[in-house]
């Protein structure tokens, strides 16, 4: 489903070049629940941005859903994002002047879905996360957990093949975090592929595979349900 070959990303800040990813190779299969771990600045968010077509790699190749993404025009990239990928962020990223259902319906708006259908599908998605009664509320009127569940509803409203989440529990208490993870687990069981960047042990406990990222490189990979860490990868780390 996702294939990264020798992906590099370098940010240029004035005269300084800051490498964020350095030759990342990664394969993610369909319906996999993958967690990316690493300290701040390790390149987790950059990796998610590139996979989610929010950013382009400086070098290397990315194949998404079996198709190469290199040179894809903006319209195609936007269409793929809007119809196949759901995003969940640490800070929820809800638009403050839109009501909960309007936030959820936003991807449908850009997919060209009519208003009545948008409303209906948004309410259905909110029901899925248990928030249908809060549909008319503005984000400021919701708790942190509720905001994140609205963000999840927005991610799942399009029926995405892939859900990318960047620290989804970072701003939540433990109870809300558990609710959110149950939701993700449910979506994964329904068929969605999940890729989550996190520090939270709770999240890793749900993962099928855990990648450790440091200084823009994958330095470790663990498959808790399958057994031991893969020492060969660790050996690849340059000294």
């Amino acid at each position, binding site marked *: 489903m996702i294939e990264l070959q020798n992906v590099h990303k370098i940010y240029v800040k004035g005269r300084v070049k800051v490498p964020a990813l350095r030759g990342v190779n990664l394969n993610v299969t369909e319906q996999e629940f993958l967690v990316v771990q690493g300290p701040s600045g390790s390149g987790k968010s950059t990796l998610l*941005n590139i996979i*989610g077509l*929010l*950013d382009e790699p400086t070098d290397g190749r990315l194949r998404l859903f079996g198709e190469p993404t290199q040179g894809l025009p*903006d*319209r195609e990239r*936007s*269409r793929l*994002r*809007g*119809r196949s990928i759901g*995003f969940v*962020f640490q*800070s929820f*990223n*809800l*638009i*403050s002047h839109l009501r909960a259902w309007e936030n959820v319906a*936003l*991807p449908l708006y*850009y*997919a060209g879905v009519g208003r009545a259908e948008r409303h209906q599908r948004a309410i259905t998605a909110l029901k899925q996360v248990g928030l249908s009664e809060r549909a008319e509320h503005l984000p400021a009127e919701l708790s942190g957990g509720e905001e994140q569940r609205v963000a999840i509803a*927005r991610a799942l409203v*399009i029926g995405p093949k892939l859900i990318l989440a960047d620290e989804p529990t970072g701003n939540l208490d433990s109870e809300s975090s558990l609710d959110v993870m149950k939701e993700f687990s449910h979506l994964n069981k329904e068929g969605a592929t999940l890729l989550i960047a996190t520090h939270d042990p709770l999240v890793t406990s749900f993962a099928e595979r855990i990648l450790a990222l440091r200084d823009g490189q994958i330095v470790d990979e663990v498959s808790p349900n399958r057994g031991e860490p893969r020492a060969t990868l660790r050996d690849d780390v340059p000294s």
Partner: protein
Amino acid sequence: MNRSPSGRGLILIAVALATAVLWISLGVREGLEAEIRALADRIGANLFYVHAEGDFGEDDLARLANLAEVAGVAGEGTYSTGYFPGQTYNITRLEVSSNYLNAFQLPLAAGRSFTPQDKAVVILGWEVKEAIFGEANPVGQTLDGAEIIGVLAQIPSDDELRRRLNNWVLVPAGSGPKSFAQAGSSERPYGALLVRARGDTRRAQSAVMRALPGATTTPISKRYQMYFHTERTTNRLLVISSLVMLVLAGTVVAGLLSLSVMNRSWEIGVRRTVGATTQDILRLFLVEGVWLAGAGGIAGICLGELVLFLAPSIGDSASIGAVHALVLPLTLTVGLLASLHPSWQAARISPARALSLRTLEGRRRYGIGGGRLIAALAVIIASSGLFLLINLVVSSQQSLTSLWGSIDERTFLVQSPRQSILAAPDLSARDLPSLQVLPGVEAAVVSGSRTVPIKGTNSPGTSVEGVGEGWEGLGLLNIEQGRDLSAPEITEGEKVALVAKGLASTMFKGADPIGQRLNIRNAPYTVVGVFNDNVVLGTLRAQVIVPYQCLEGLWFYHCFFVHTDSEAEPGEVRAAIVDLFQGIYPDKAKVEIVAPAAQVAEWRQTLTATANRLGILVGLGLLLGAIGVFNLISFLLLLRTRELGIRRAAGATRNRIVTLGVVEALKITVPAGLIGLSLGLAGTGPLQRFLGQLPSLSWNWAWIIVATAIGVGLLAGGWPAWRVSRLSPAEAMRRGKR
């Protein structure tokens, strides 16, 4: 998410105010144009003049009359003015073709129009009839040997093109310059032709120009427009200034939208994340800009109408015309153009970058676009406009007040009329005693004038005015330097003089004129005072004033200054004076009475109306500048909210925070004000040329521009800073983190 400080309210206000001003300016312009059209319609807008290098003859009239596009042709000959030998009338006569009255839509009050066979006949204008024959019907009588066959009905005074005919007489073409009776002496008597179009006027004009190669045509409406040249130019300037203001509002809106884009970059990121394309983002901001401009435009139109309704002095004759239909589309276009760059800015941010700009510090690095430049531009334009406005108002007021000394409606001037049908009375000092004993007259002073050569001046003749006893008590002049003539000097006829400021600077080349000598008819006079150049005494623009006795018997023209007593009704006294001189000079024209106070009041009224209109434009410019600065400072402070929280936690007082905002604002407004001031100074020359009589403009009021720039900075920077300073340090740090 933080709400944008570059709120939609500010955009609406900026567009609404600019649209309102444009609406009003167009209304004022349209009012005058409608008035001109109405005047042309009285004669028929399908009438046009034809001129050529040479004069026209009857053959030309016949050629044009045969054209299918022409309904009728009349000829207008040359006119001549003057006293005729042995006559007491000063009459202007116009030679015309026999169908002229019909072509020019001139109704008769009595008698008949011309026929082609008429020779040695005359038709009188209404005022000519009134002056010579009074109430009697003159038809059938003779004037200068010509039979009076008709009298024109009185033409209303607002009909600038035709009202002169009230004071003229019409004679058949070819009557010659010498006498009404000598008709038929010229073969080509017409200087202009009046053509009435059949059907489309433009087609008729083309047909006429083809028939008479080299001829030019002027529609009657254009002729009327020429009489309103100054008003039309002023209106055009107002409309252009209003359009500039709308463009300025557009740039302010562009700045506001740019800042809004930066403030909403995170929202853009979210939208892009969920599938919005660059076109979607472009469309989002374009639609928002155009929608806001449209809403502002509609609000502005309502506001403009309200102002015209509530403040008729701003646009007393304003009316709505077809051109007003363009205002809203124009506003929408300005909104669209203003949103183009900000929308493009919004569309080209990559989604990942837009999301990363959620950090306020990140947005700061992204920059603040041209917001600073646009705010400065508005302040520059407003400052230069303010400088010109202040100079216009202040210097004109100074000019009006320095023109005359203590004048009121009880002081006026009695003089021979400058233009009259009957010969003007030759007033003299002999008339003074009769005037002095007239009931209600407190004081009457004789004044004589003539032009004499004076050494040291640039012109061959200088206007000298002699003033008689009682002058010193009137206090008519504002003496700028030195003193007025004293009673003993006037009584004794001492050789002392008052000199106009301009003449003094020419003659004495910057030296103190007081005590200097000048020679008038070989006699030395000592300068005792200097007065303003623009004072008009009698019929001349006085340049030197001396005691009357000095040149007694040598004065060419006389007039009288009259001051009524406080008990008397000035109007009644004026009427009594006219009657007095009618009695003294029974066959002459009535004396003319000029009231300086009324003149000054009229000038003030015109000045106030102009100043009001310019003031609105300048005020709008300042407001737009203030909005731009306010928004920019709000945004800068928003970016620094966290920093301000940290500063407050570290001990900074609220005043320090307010000072920070004010200093940021002053860094924009003060340099902009100074640039505006320089532009204002550069613009004074063209303004003086346009307004003609405006006295020299000065630096004296420059401090107001600087003070205004500082004031705008204090308000536009201080207000948002004050709001931020009210936040607790903890709240400021918390908000800044978001």
